[in-house]
């Protein structure tokens, strides 16, 4: 069967293969650029400085500079420098990043006041958790109310609709002024970034509940209270869960901005610090850790959701 049939699922074998390629291809590209010397490699790592007095062993120089110095030295009949093609320092090779996944955890912080990587990660997770929890505790009930009762919809939604266009990072300075420089303003940024979208999305999800179910409930004698708690809430629960998963993903994207506010902290602090020391392998590892952490949590929630709502059609 063709790989390109419109709106037809692939055969299981090819589907698996394509899914794996989704990750393998970018990594393969990275490997090519890193390990094949004649692809890119714009710099030269000096193995022997020869007669060039400012070259040092292990130093990275631009290929044109290296060639010019090498020509000059050979013209003067002096010892020529030697080196191997290399990539810029900001593109470490895959194996270096892979090792960094381990070594970044075992590298001692430069100063005793600084945090280990696992402590930084834990701080980030806490910021996300509290920001998102706070947003959900307030946002989901408001969203359900707005989706159920026209009164609350008119009362909340126009203002929220306006507020959600204000970029959350814009509140950084304000958050610091009000909440201090530590975790609180960061949590506030996550909250602002999530909350307003959450109310609107939850309200929309609530409105999408089949009105026939509400009518059926009415003809079965359900009063206003039961309609909300015995029909609306259970009816939207699977969609609410899915919305929450998606919004949690958004919350992660606000993390870096949030952590730059006040005293830089968490994984963001780690990344900027390591970039300052030019440990780009650690930087890559840390960035990937965010992705892996986010994806893992999402997959866990998805797996959990399938068990949580057995009445949903398997699709």
């Amino acid at each position, binding site marked *: 069967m063709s790989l390109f049939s419109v709106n037809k699922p692939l055969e299981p074998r090819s589907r698996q293969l394509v899914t794996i390629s989704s990750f393998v291809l970018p990594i393969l590209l990275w490997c090519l650029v890193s390990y094949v010397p004649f692809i890119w490699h714009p710099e030269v790592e000096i193995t022997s400085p020869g007669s060039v007095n400012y070259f040092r062993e292990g130093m990275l120089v631009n290929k044109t500079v290296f060639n010019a110095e090498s020509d000059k030295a050979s013209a003067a009949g002096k010892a020529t420098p030697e080196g191997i093609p290399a990539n810029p320092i900001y593109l470490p090779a895959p194996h270096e990043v892979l090792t960094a996944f381990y070594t970044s955890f075992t590298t001692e912080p430069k100063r005793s006041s600084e945090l280990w990587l696992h402590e930084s990660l834990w701080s980030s997770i806490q910021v996300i958790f509290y920001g998102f929890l706070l947003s959900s505790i307030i946002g989901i009930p408001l969203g359900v109310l707005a989706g159920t009762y026209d009164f609350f919809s008119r009362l909340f939604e126009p203002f929220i609709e306006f507020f959600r266009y204000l970029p959350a990072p814009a509140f950084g300075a304000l958050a610091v002024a009000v909440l201090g420089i530590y975790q609180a303003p960061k949590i506030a940024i996550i909250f602002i970034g999530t909350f307003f979208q959450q109310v609107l999305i939850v309200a929309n999800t609530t409105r999408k509940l089949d009105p*026939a179910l509400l*009518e059926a409930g009415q*003809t079965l*004698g*359900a009063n206003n209270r039961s309609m909300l708690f015995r029909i609306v809430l259970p009816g939207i629960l699977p969609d609410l869960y899915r919305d929450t998963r998606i919004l949690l993903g958004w919350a992660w994207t606000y993390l870096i901005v949030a952590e730059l506010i006040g005293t830089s902290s968490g994984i963001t602090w780690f990344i900027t610090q390591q970039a300052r020391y030019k440990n780009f392998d650690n930087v890559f590892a840390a960035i990937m850790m965010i992705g892996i952490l986010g994806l893992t949590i999402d997959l866990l929630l998805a797996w959990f959701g399938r068990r949580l709502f057995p*009445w949903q059609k398997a699709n």
Partner: protein
Amino acid sequence: MSESTLPDYRVQSDAVRDRFARIKKRPVTMEVAGLSKTFQSRHGTVTALKDINLTIHKREFVCVIGPSGCGKSTLIRILAGLEQATEGEVKLDGKVVDKPGPERGMVFQGYTLFPWLTVKKNIMFGLIESGYDKGTAEAEARQWIELIGLSRFENSYPHQLSGGMKQRVAIARALANKPKVLLMDEPFGALDAQTRSKMQAYLMEIWKNIDVTVFFITHDLDEAIYLADRILVLKANPGEVQEVIEVAVPQPRHPEQFLSPEFIATKKRLEELIHPPKQDDDEDHLNLVRMVPVNDEVGSVF
């Protein structure tokens, strides 16, 4: 059967005439008086229903039939209390209906079972609402499940059931509240022909054995004649009562009656009322010309 030997659809045997006389002596369950419903649309006021009058007696089976757009769904929704009439009123046992309530059970075409509840819990829903404690409600629900023959499925979710089974659960869910009237809005419209006739038989069985009055909307002529004591024929624009037919087919009904002279005579009358001989200005027709050459391999399908 040739047209000339077909009896008039109004001719009733003695047994049928006696039965209708007895029905009319029963207490009135539902009364619809001077009911009208108008909507405001962009093109002005639309009259969906106009001056509907109807008296339904206890345990009577009334079908409503009419062309699409005749407001039959609006009518049943007003009876259920899901919509308000513009004029006139609906009374159930002498009390004016103004909002939905469990004494008027409703069965919808789209099943409307709560997908997050099992069969048993769906049936328990209304019982809990009317104040039964969990144990009693569960016992009641179990009985209903037994009655509709779905004991094996009591803990199944609606998506695991076939359309016919879903509708059986929906009927049981409405009946568990012991409604005075069972309102059914094209309940079997989404079912295939075979399941549908099975469901019709089930419904007759339920109606025979349970103290309930049935108000049933359909667009299927056979279904209306097969099920109804009386058929209310509506016409469209505006939705008015065209005729109320007392079905002359004797009760109890059975499928062989589909070919009886009374049945065919009634069906012929309904056909005339609902699909009157069409004028030429019907815009809804195809404009086909012959596109196969006469000397083609198959020149004509006849």
